[in-house]
C-alpha cells in the first residue's frame, strides 16, 4: 500500500462514498497532487494576456458550480507569480506591468448584509474604483449575485435595469472582449459556455501518468489489485479508451447534457478506483471491477445503484450504448472471438468470467462495454460501423467537421437537401431543386400545396464556422455547421441531433412526435428559408405541387392581365 496517499486523493475527488472533500476547487488547489494532475486550461492564457495587455478593467469569471473557475484563477495567479491564498477572500497582487490587481476569490461568498464591512456592494464599489485608478480586478463570481449587485451600483431603477440587461447580454454573447457597460470596463467570461470536452482525456492522461503509479509496483496487492489493473489496462488500450471517452463526452454535450469539469473528474477518478481505498482491495474476480464497468456504474454484469449518484456515471448509463445492437455482435456474442477482438489479456478475463455468467442477464451488455473500451479491431470498415451503431450514422462525419479535420462536402449538402425536401413535399430531393411550400404544421394533410419558392440544390452548402469560444481555447478550435444558400448563411446552427433527424427523415422514418428542441431548430430553419426567398416573388405566377402516390406533380399557372389563367 505504498501508493495509498494518491489512491486516497483520487477517492476524494468523487462522491461515491459521500466524501469528496477535494471536489471543491478552493480545497483541491492546496493538495500536493493537484499540481500533478492539473490540466492546463487555454482560458488561463487568455485571461493572463488580458490582465497584462488590455487597459485597466474588471475580469469576471463566471459559470456553473464545478466548472473549474477557482482552478483557473489559481493557474493564472501562479503563472503571474502571485501567490494564491485560499483563505483570503480578497487579496491584492502586483502585475508584471506594475499595476495592482485586486483578486476576489469568490464574490458570491461575500455577505449581502450591509452591516458586514466587506459586503458585496462594498467590494463591487471597490472594484470599480480600482479600475478608475488604473488598476485591475480579477474576480470569480456566480451569475445571480453578480447581476444583482452590479445593478445596485446605479441610482435609478431604469439605470439598474439597463445595466443588468447589458451584463446579461455580455454573459450570453461571451466574446471575452473588454467592453464598457454603463461606464465600467468589463470583461466577462462565462466558463459555462466554453467547450470543456477536451478536459476529460487530458485529465485521464494526467491521473494515469507513470510517476504517480510508481508506488504501486512494490505493493503486495499489486497482483490482484483492480485499481492498478485498471490503470494498466487504460494505458495499454490508450488509443481506444481515449477515443471512446472523448466521443462519449462530445455526444453528451451535443445531445444537451453538458457536464462540468467536476462531474467529469468524479467519473474518471471513480472509473479507476471503484470508490475503494487500498485497504479495501481484495481478491476479486477480475471482470467485476473493470474500468469499463465502473465508467457506467456497473460491477460485473450488475448495475450498482450507488454509483448512479455520480452525475456523470448516471448520464453515461442513460446513453444505453451497451444496449444497442452492433454489427460486431456477431463476432462478439455469437462467435465469441475474444482473442481476435481483445487480445490475450482481456480474453483471459472474459473467458474466466464467462464460465459463471454466460447465461446471466446482463452478460451481453458486459461484453459490449468491454468491447467499447478495449477492442483491438483495426479494420476501418468495422470501426466505422461501430461508430454508426454505437452513436449514429452521421456522428463520425459530424466529429470531423466539428473538429475541423475535414471540410463540408457536397454529400453533406445532399443530406440537408433530402431532408428539406422530405419536410416540404414528403419525398427525397431529385437533385435539381427543392420546392418550398406554404404548409401547415398541425398535421392536416394538404394534398395541394403552394410553392413559395425553390432552392436549387446546387446552391445549398454546409458552412463550417469557428465557434465563438474558440478564442478561449487556443489550439483547440471547434466549428459549428450552418446552412448557406447561395451567398447567405442562415443563423440556425445545424446540430448533431438535427443531422441525425435529417438522416432518419431521408430514410423515411417519420417521427411524428419529435422533441420540441428539435422542432424548434427545424422550424427556425424553415422560417429563415421562407424569409430569404420572399423577395423574388412574382405575384401573378402561382406554382403549386400536387402530392400524389405516384409522385409529385408541379404546376405553374399565370394570371394574365386579360383575366385568363395560363399554364407556364
Amino acid at each position, binding site marked *: 500500500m505504498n501508493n495509498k496517499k494518491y489512491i486516497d486523493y483520487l477517492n476524494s475527488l468523487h462522491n461515491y462514498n459521500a466524501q469528496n472533500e477535494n471536489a471543491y476547487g478552493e480545497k483541491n488547489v492546496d493538495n500536493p497532487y493537484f499540481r500533478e494532475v492539473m490540466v492546463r486550461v487555454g482560458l488561463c492564457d487568455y485571461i493572463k494576456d488580458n490582465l497584462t495587455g488590455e487597459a485597466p478593467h474588471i475580469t469576471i469569471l463566471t459559470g*456553473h*458550480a464545478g466548472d473549474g473557475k477557482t482552478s483557473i484563477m489559481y493557474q493564472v495567479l501562479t503563472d503571474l507569480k502571485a501567490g494564491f491564498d485560499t483563505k483570503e477572500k480578497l487579496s491584492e497582487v502586483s502585475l508584471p506591468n506594475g499595476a495592482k490587481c485586486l483578486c476576489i476569490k469568490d464574490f458570491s461568498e461575500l455577505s449581502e448584509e450591509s452591516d458586514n464591512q466587506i459586503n458585496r456592494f462594498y467590494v463591487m464599489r471597490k472594484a470599480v474604483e480600482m479600475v478608475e485608478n488604473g488598476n485591475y480586478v480579477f474576480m470569480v463570481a456566480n451569475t445571480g449575485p453578480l447581476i444583482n449587485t452590479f445593478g445596485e451600483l446605479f441610482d435609478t431603477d431604469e439605470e439598474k435595469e439597463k445595466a443588468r*440587461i447589458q451584463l446579461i*447580454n455580455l454573459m*450570453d454573447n461571451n466574446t471575452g472582449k473588454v467592453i464598457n457597460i454603463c461606464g465600467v470596463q468589463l470583461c466577462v467570461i462565462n466558463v*459555462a459556455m466554453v467547450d470543456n470536452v477536451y478536459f476529460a482525456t487530458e485529465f485521464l492522461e494526467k491521473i494515469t501518468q507513470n510517476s504517480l503509479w510508481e508506488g504501486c509496483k512494490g505493493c503486495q496487492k499489486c497482483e490482484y489489485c483492480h485499481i492498478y489493473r485498471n490503470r494498466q489496462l487504460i494505458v495499454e488500450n490508450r488509443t481506444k479508451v481515449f477515443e471512446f471517452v472523448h466521443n462519449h463526452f462530445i455526444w453528451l454535450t451535443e445531445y444537451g447534457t453538458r457536464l462540468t469539469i467536476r462531474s467529469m473528474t468524479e467519473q474518471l477518478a471513480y472509473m479507476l478506483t471503484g470508490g475503494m481505498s487500498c485497504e479495501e482491495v481484495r481478491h476479486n474476480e477480475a471482470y467485476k471491477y473493470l474500468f469499463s464497468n465502473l465508467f457506467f456504474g456497473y460491477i460485473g454484469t450488475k448495475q450498482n445503484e450507488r454509483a448512479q449518484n455520480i452525475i456523470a456515471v448516471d448520464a453515461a448509463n442513460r446513453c444505453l450504448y451497451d444496449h444497442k445492437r452492433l454489427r460486431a455482435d456477431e463476432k462478439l456474442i455469437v462467435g465469441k472471438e475474444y482473442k481476435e477482438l481483445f487480445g490475450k489479456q482481456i480474453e483471459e478475463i472474459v473467458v474466466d468470467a464467462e464460465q459463471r455468467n454466460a447465461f446471466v442477464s446482463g452478460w451481453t451488455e458486459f461484453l459490449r462495454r468491454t468491447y467499447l473500451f478495449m477492442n483491438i479491431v483495426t479494420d476501418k470498415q468495422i470501426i466505422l460501423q461501430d461508430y454508426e451503431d454505437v452513436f449514429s450514422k452521421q456522428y463520425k462525419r459530424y466529429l470531423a467537421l466539428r473538429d475541423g479535420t475535414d471540410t463540408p462536402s457536397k454529400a453533406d449538402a445532399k443530406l440537408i437537401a433530402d431532408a428539406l425536401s422530405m419536410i416540404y413535399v414528403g419525398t427525397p430531393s431529385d437533385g435539381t431543386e427543392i420546392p418550398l411550400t406554404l404548409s401547415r404544421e398541425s398535421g392536416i394533410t*394538404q394534398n395541394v400545396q403552394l410553392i413559395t419558392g425553390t432552392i436549387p440544390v446546387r446552391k445549398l452548402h454546409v458552412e463550417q464556422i469557428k465557434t465563438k469560444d474558440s478564442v478561449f481555447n487556443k489550439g483547440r478550435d471547434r466549428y459549428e455547421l450552418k446552412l448557406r444558400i447561395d451567398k447567405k448563411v442562415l443563423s440556425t446552427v445545424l446540430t448533431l441531433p438535427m443531422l441525425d433527424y435529417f438522416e432518419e427523415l431521408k430514410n423515411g422514418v417519420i417521427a411524428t412526435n419529435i*422533441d420540441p428542441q428539435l422542432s424548434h431548430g427545424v422550424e427556425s430553419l424553415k422560417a429563415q428559408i421562407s424569409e430569404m426567398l420572399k423577395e423574388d416573388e412574382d405575384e401573378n405566377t402561382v406554382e403549386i405541387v400536387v402530392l400524389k402516390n405516384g409522385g409529385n406533380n408541379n404546376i405553374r*399557372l399565370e394570371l394574365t392581365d386579360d383575366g385568363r389563367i395560363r399554364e407556364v
Partner: protein
Amino acid sequence: MRTFPSWMEDDYNKIANKGPLSTLIFGNRFKADQTLYEYLIEFLLIFVSAKNEDLKEGKMQFHDVTGEHKLSYWVEPRMALRRFIFFDKSKKKGSIPEDFIAYSEMVNYLNDKMDVADRESAKEYIEDIQDLFHGYAAVVKNRFWGAQALLPICPEFILCGVDPTEAKRRKDVNWENDPGSLDTKFDFKRHNFLSRGGELYYLHLLQGLEGDRDRQERLVRLLNDLVSGQCKKISKMAGYVQDTWEKKYSLDKKVLSQKLEVAYIPATGYKECGSYSVDELISFLSCKLHPITRVEILAKGVMFQIMRMMSYRVADYLDIEKPAWIVDMKGETTDTVKKIAHGAFLNIESHFMSAINKMANEAGIEEERMKKVREARINSLDIFKSKGKELQCIIPVSGPFERFSLSEDVIRFLVLSLVAPGDKMTLKMFLEKLYYNYRIVIGPEEYRQSLKSINMDSSLANCFSENVVAFQCFLRSTGFLKELSDATSIVVNPYESIEEAEA
C-alpha cells in the same frame, strides 16, 4: 353603467333591466358557439374591412374613435369564393338548387378561362386550386358550406358570418333574371358563429390604445404584414376567383357588401389589461415566424388574452383583487401544487357565478331568473373553461381537479409577446412579468405575493420551487431558455424582428 365607446350607453340601457346577463357584464357579446379561430377571424375582419360605404376608406385600419358615431364596417362576403372552395366538399344542407347550378357554372367558366392544352388537365387544375384553398380551412365542422371558415392568411380569406336562411332564399333568389340575388339573400347579421367575441377583442384593443398614435401605427403596420404581407399569391388567386365571377355577372361589390356594426364593452374592467394586450400583440407580431405558424399561434394567444379579459372584468365588477392563475406545470397526480392550483381555479369559477348573480340582482331580474343565470354561465364561464381546455391551459379535459397549466403553444405566445424579438431577460424577471401581466403564478415569490392582500398563510410557498423547475425544463426543451450558469437562466426570444429587417 358606462360603456366603451361612451356613446353606446343608450344601447346598453335598452337591455339594462332584462339581460342577457353576460352581455351586461362582459359587453355585447360572448357566445358559446364561437370557435377558437373565429375570435381571431372576426377581430381581423373588422380590421381589414372598409369603414365606409365606398368600400375603400378605412381598410386595414382601426376605427377613428375621436368623433361620436357608430363603429360601422362594410364587409365583402365573397360568397362565390366560398362556394368555389367549400360547396363541393361539404354536405349540401342549407343549399338551394340554384347553388348547384351556380357552382357548376363557376367551375365551367373558370375552365374556359384556362389556356391549357387539353380540357382534362384544365379541369384537374381547377380541382387542384380548390384543394389548395381548402387546405387552409380553419373551421369546417358539420356546417353549411357558406359558414365554414379559412385561416386568416390573406384579406380574401377573412370572411364574415353567414346564415343559410334556406326558406327565404328559395323564395327570393331569382337566378335567371337577377344572378346577384343568389349571393345577397343570406342573413349576414345573425352572428351565429362570428358571434361578436372578436368584436369585443377589437374594442378591447381600441380601448387599450388610448389614442396613442405611435402604438396604433405600429400595430396597424404589423397587422398589415400579418394579413397582406405574407401570402400574396394565395390572395391574388382568391381575389381572381371572386372577381371573375363578379365580372361575368356584372355584380357590383357595393351591392354585395354588408354593413355591420361593432357594439360596446364595459368602460372599466378591460381597460387595464387592454394596454398589455396591445403591447403583447405588437411584440408577438414583430417576430419573424413562418406565416402559417404565426397565424396559428396568434389565434391561441388572442384566445388566451380574451380569457384574461373575462377574468379581469369579473374582478373589476365584483370590486375585488384580480385573481391569481395558479399554474400547475408538473401535472402530477398527487401534489400540493395541484391542490392549491385547483383551489384557485374553484375560486375563479365562483367569482364568475357571484358576478352573474350580482348582475341579476342589479338588473332586478325575477322572471325566469334561473334560466337567465344559466344562460349567462354558458356564455361566460363555460367559454372560459372550454376554450381554456382547448388551449390546454386548463387541465384535465374531463374529470376532477380542474386547474391552470400552460401548453407549448401558449408558452410560445407568452414568450414571444412578453420578450421583444431578439431580447432576453432572466427567468426571474419573466416570472414577474407573467404575474404582472396575467396574474400567472408559477414560482414561490409570486405565490407569496398573491396571498399578500388576502393575508393568508404562505407557508406552502416552497412547494412551488419544483413547479418553477418543471417550467424551466419546458422552456428549455422549446428552445426559449438558456442557462448562463446553474443559478441563472435567461428566457430568450430567438426570433428576429420584422421591423428591423425592413429598416
